[in-house]
């Protein structure tokens, strides 16, 4: 059974914790041992959030060692930059292109990296990088809050796990009133990488 270590990087309020819960549970339902650990910054909202998710035959530590992450799912480009130090060379990155600009930038004390800088850094680290505009897709289908499920949908196309497991876990973890929206979000996301239109 192949071991897989995932990093989910984002900003508080983006739904990264739900995404890491879903990813860990998908692993469990696909027959892996699974663990996850969230590293939250000091801020209640708006801080950096890094989640480690691990699938394997037997998982001991919930925390992954530096330079060993196979996949990074980045909800925000600056946080993707912060996460590259944890990636193994040649890994895979799926990165949402929509920035969440920190106060240090809006206050004029710091500069947000340019798109070309971000793309160059990610490309220098990973074997494969997918840039997806998940936020715009989420707004297009009706709610920016489902950006996280769009990201998971996109990323799910890269893993060899039955899509029905994914959809079951995603939909079991969202409020009843949002099941249809999240199903649509998952399928929209999946089509972004899969190229198979929400099948």
């Amino acid at each position, binding site marked *: 059974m192949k071991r897989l270590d995932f990093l989910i990087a984002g*900003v508080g309020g983006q739904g990264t914790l739900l995404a890491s*819960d879903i990813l*860990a*549970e998908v692993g*469990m339902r696909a027959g892996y*041992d*699974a*663990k*996850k*650990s*969230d590293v*939250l*910054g*000091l*801020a*209640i*909202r*708006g*801080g*950096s959030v890094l989640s480690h998710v691990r699938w394997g035959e037997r*998982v*001991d*530590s*919930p*925390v*992954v*060692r*530096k*330079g*060993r992450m196979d996949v990074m799912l980045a909800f925000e480009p*600056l946080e993707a*930059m*912060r996460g*590259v*130090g944890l*990636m*193994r*060379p040649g890994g895979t990155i799926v990165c949402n292109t929509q920035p969440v600009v*920190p*106060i*240090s*930038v*809006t*206050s*004029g*004390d*710091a*500069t*947000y*990296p340019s798109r070309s*800088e971000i793309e160059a*850094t990610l490309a*220098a*680290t990973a074997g494969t990088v997918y840039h997806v505009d998940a936020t715009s897709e989420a707004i297009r289908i009706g709610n920016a809050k489902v950006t996280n499920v769009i990201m998971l949908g996109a990323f799910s196309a890269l893993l060899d796990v039955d899509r029905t497991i994914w959809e079951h876990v995603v939909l079991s973890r969202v409020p009843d009133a949002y099941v249809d929206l999240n199903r649509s979000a998952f399928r929209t996301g999946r089509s972004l990488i899969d190229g198979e239109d929400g099948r």
Partner: protein
Amino acid sequence: MTKALLSGNEAIARGAYEAGVQVATGYPGTPSSEILETIASRYGDRIYAEWSTNEKVAMDTAAGAAYSGRRALVTTKQVGMNVLSDALLYTVYTGVEAGLVVVTADDPGMFSSQNEQDNRWYARLAKIPLLEPADSQEAKDFVVQAIGLSERFDTPVLIRTTMRTSHSKGVVLEGPRQDVPDEVGPFPRRQEKYVCTAMWAKKRHPVVEQRLVDLAKHAEELPLNRIEWGDRSIGIITSGITYAYAREVFPGASFLKLGMTFPLPHETIRAFADGVDRVVVIEELDPFLEEQIQAMGIPAAGKEIFPSCDELLPDTLAELAVGAGLLPSKAVGSPSRPEVPAELPPRIPVLCAGCPHRSSYYWLSQMKMPVAGDIGCYNLGCLPPFNAQHTMGCMGASIGVLHGMSIAGMPERAVATIGDSTFFHSGMPALVNMVHNRSRGVVLIMDNGTTAMTGHQDHPGTSWSLHEREAPHVEIEAVVRALGVEKVRTVDAFDVQQVKEGLDDCLAFDGPSVLIAKGLCAQLSKPKTAAYEVNADVCIACGTCFKLGCPAIVKSNEVVESTGRTKAAIDPTQCVGCDMCRQVCPVGAIRAPGAGSEEADG
């Protein structure tokens, strides 16, 4: 048996359910808070759960329930244990009628705490059994074990987790709930056991000592302590989450994995030490195991390699182990490891947009007086742009520290800030003390209607509780008056001028005074209006609104040429329309959507 993905805290809640616990109490504190929240939300029909006013009250309550025949569980974060301990120590002498378990969630790495204390010492101090789960499965199982030990040995039992064990999630096999009676009988009138007066307590002390001897014997056959033989050149003794890290870093080594870390199984430890060339103790924080093992005459390495500060995450462990020659150098990192780009813009913690505490710190920072702070979101007042808090120690400390400043004869006027939940927790006795001892100074109670920082739990001032949608609530102003404070004012925290007038009024009073700045936590209130706007034609770039430290107020692209200063703008995705910036703008440049810009603040 079903499989579920649970955090350590959720697993402890599940363990309480399966162990037949019927009463669960605690005071919120990261990283422990989710235990009671999970008990209330998932098992509330079978387990009574409450947020008590503080940890000591929670412990006394659980003791009373356990004396009455109900299995009980108390939760606390590591520093809450200091508050709880007075109550814990008498239950050690009394023992219980039904199982009594205390869960302490420690915080190595200080993710949300004021210190890095190692609460395993409390087990040794109190002379009670200590269990340390390494993952969610053990977190659940150990609660069931702890209830069993508590009843078999007639003692409270301590379970110690850390932030990682409590907050990480893992796969847990769930089991059924043990049968416990619905009713309890009459209260046991056993004064010689439950009255800790010296004449009876003296007879209980030998019972406590004998219990420890019996527990140590029991530890030898307890499956919670197990040897995993591997390469005999190194034998690692460890417990809790560090076992998981060490397993990863030393995949081939021999392990003595201790589930019960007090009292220790001496024979098992000796057998393990005899079976390996070198004994290494790996534990986060203090040399709790190491010192006991060395006292047995076993030459064990520990803190000389793995320090007492911070978490011992796998990377740290590997680097230190390589440095000490325990692992070959190739065990560290990967050679072509990518580096994080230097100088990425940080995400700095600030009070939320719409936070009611903002108005108080806006004035306190300008008034430049010393401020004794307390535990809660308002501690962010110590950071820029406010820099308006000068001490912070523990729950309820601010009022006592203010009193100390007063009696020390400090020449300046001073303020203590304290939140509503913290006031009920341990602020009240300090305030009474100020009254009785003729103190001077302003106690600013920042009442945002909830225990915000730990995730919006109830407290005696809220009109709901953990187990009831509608609960009796206690008015802070009435309490303050009843405590004997003559000068009391309540102001609307969202009315910036009112807060200033209140502060001035209280500061002028020669004695202890209380200002209650009342305004609902931004996370609980709905956005009041759509986002405000800055009229760039009116803005003079004076920077007054920036002094509010609001994440929604940002620098625009426009610069005033004569001063070189940047005009303000409002980030519409962040602004919740709290109105404070409009109130402080001296030229009326900030307006609510649809409002004219010329009207100055009236």
